[in-house]
């Protein structure tokens, strides 16, 4: 994993509005939540979104029939609008219950964590034994970092490799899988990936089988 020393001095990333969704169109978190619900295939799901930022997907996620509860984990710096409408529960990111969620979504978060290993471990611990964690980030592939916009984006402190993700996953007893999201192809984001993690081998098999018929992992609504 690479530490990005100059990140906070760099100009803001071109924050893609579509990723966050809007009143008119679903964003990436909704696509992730829907796919997770489909592949887990059970009702009464408890779903957590880890610091969803400006995501406008809360109401849509809460309305997915298999989802019984939708929480968002925020810290003091987060905009309260991420919590969305009534029915969505806000929890303190430092007080997230362990083993509590069937699905944990961490979209474009792991590159911003102050302590990357401890932060990723905390995200993983929120998932229950059969739970599924879905991360989205760019994974470094050995290309010169200076040439990559992702490394210069505001608040990006870390450029994860899959080996770094695997190291933390293994230490927490998690298996992992990596899939190509639709947005990577649409916007030529060469290194964008979804990482699926679970302690449960059967859940990981569900992920793999899901991609027997899913060409790429769904992402923000394309227009």
């Amino acid at each position, binding site marked *: 994993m690479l530490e990005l020393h100059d990140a906070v001095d760099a100009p803001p990333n071109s924050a893609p509005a579509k990723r966050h969704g809007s009143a008119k169109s679903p964003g990436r978190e909704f696509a992730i939540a829907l796919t997770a619900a489909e592949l887990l295939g059970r009702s009464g799901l408890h779903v957590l979104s880890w610091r969803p930022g400006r995501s406008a997907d809360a109401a849509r996620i809460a309305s997915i029939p298999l989802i019984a509860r939708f929480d968002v984990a925020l810290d003091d710096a987060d905009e309260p609008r991420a919590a969305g409408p009534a029915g969505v529960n806000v929890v303190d990111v430092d007080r997230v219950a362990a083993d509590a969620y069937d699905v944990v979504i961490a979209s474009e978060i792991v590159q911003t964590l102050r302590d990357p290993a401890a932060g990723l471990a905390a995200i993983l611990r929120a998932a229950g034994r059969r739970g599924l964690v879905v991360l989205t980030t760019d994974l470094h592939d*050995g290309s010169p970092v200076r040439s990559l916009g992702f490394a210069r984006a505001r608040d990006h402190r870390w450029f994860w490799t899959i080996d770094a993700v695997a190291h933390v996953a293994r230490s927490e007893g998690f*298996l*992992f899988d990596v899939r190509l999201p639709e947005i990577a192809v649409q916007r030529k984001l060469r290194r964008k990936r979804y990482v699926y993690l679970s302690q449960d081998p059967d859940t990981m098999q569900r992920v793999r089988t899901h*991609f*027997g018929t899913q060409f790429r992992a769904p992402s923000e609504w394309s227009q």
Partner: protein
Amino acid sequence: MTEPGGAAEPCLVCAGPVRFHTATWHRDPDRRVYLNMCRICGFVRVVDNPWDYAERGFSHNSTSGPRVGTDQRPGREFHMAMLGLDLLDRPAARVLILGAGLSRDWSHITNDDRVAAVTTSDLENFNDSPNFLELHEQGTREFDLVIACEVLEHLPNPSVDFAQVFSNLSDEGVFVASTNIYDFSPIDRHWYPYIPGHVSYHSARSIEILAAAAGMKVDFRVPLVATQRAGRRKRYVIFSTREDVMSAAARWFATEWYAPSEIDKRKH
């Protein structure tokens, strides 16, 4: 409509109830196939669509195009083997190519430093392979990597036939197959079941069931050729008993978009 050969039997994979369906090719009303479609696992049996390659020779689909390797140019089996060897991550691999047909990829794979020997198996030794395994000899030798390119759809009795394929694998081995996966979209528009010899059209779930019966984990990956001529339902199917092989596949696709195939320009 009455099914040729009598009433529909239970699903050959999960024993679930099947629905008999006649599919008519949307571009030719005289081109039809009879299907037993499982309501549970999605496995599709194509009724009365056999093709004996030893008797009738190879169809145009099996001999033309870049999928089939020649002496001058590697085909899909070569690229599947390169992926499999990456996942296997061990030296001196013993490789078996099932249903190799006319492909000469055995010669290209033999040249890889990680390979000890390449054996092929088919109805006959169509491709002059120096190491040939008769079909009835399957299971008598162990291989670290088994490749089956466009073979699974030709196996008429999946439970028995998959077990036979798996019997060629060492305990630590990897099996990489290439096939189309039925995705429950309108089947009248799927060319795959109309191809002579295609008697089994698998869903991801039917393959998962067959893998689990043998203690195998299974992964599905999109080959580059699926973005072009082979279509969106083409997958490489990776079988192994080892969780670390599944992790190796995840690592491989952390830096690559698609699995390598016959249109791949990379040097191996």
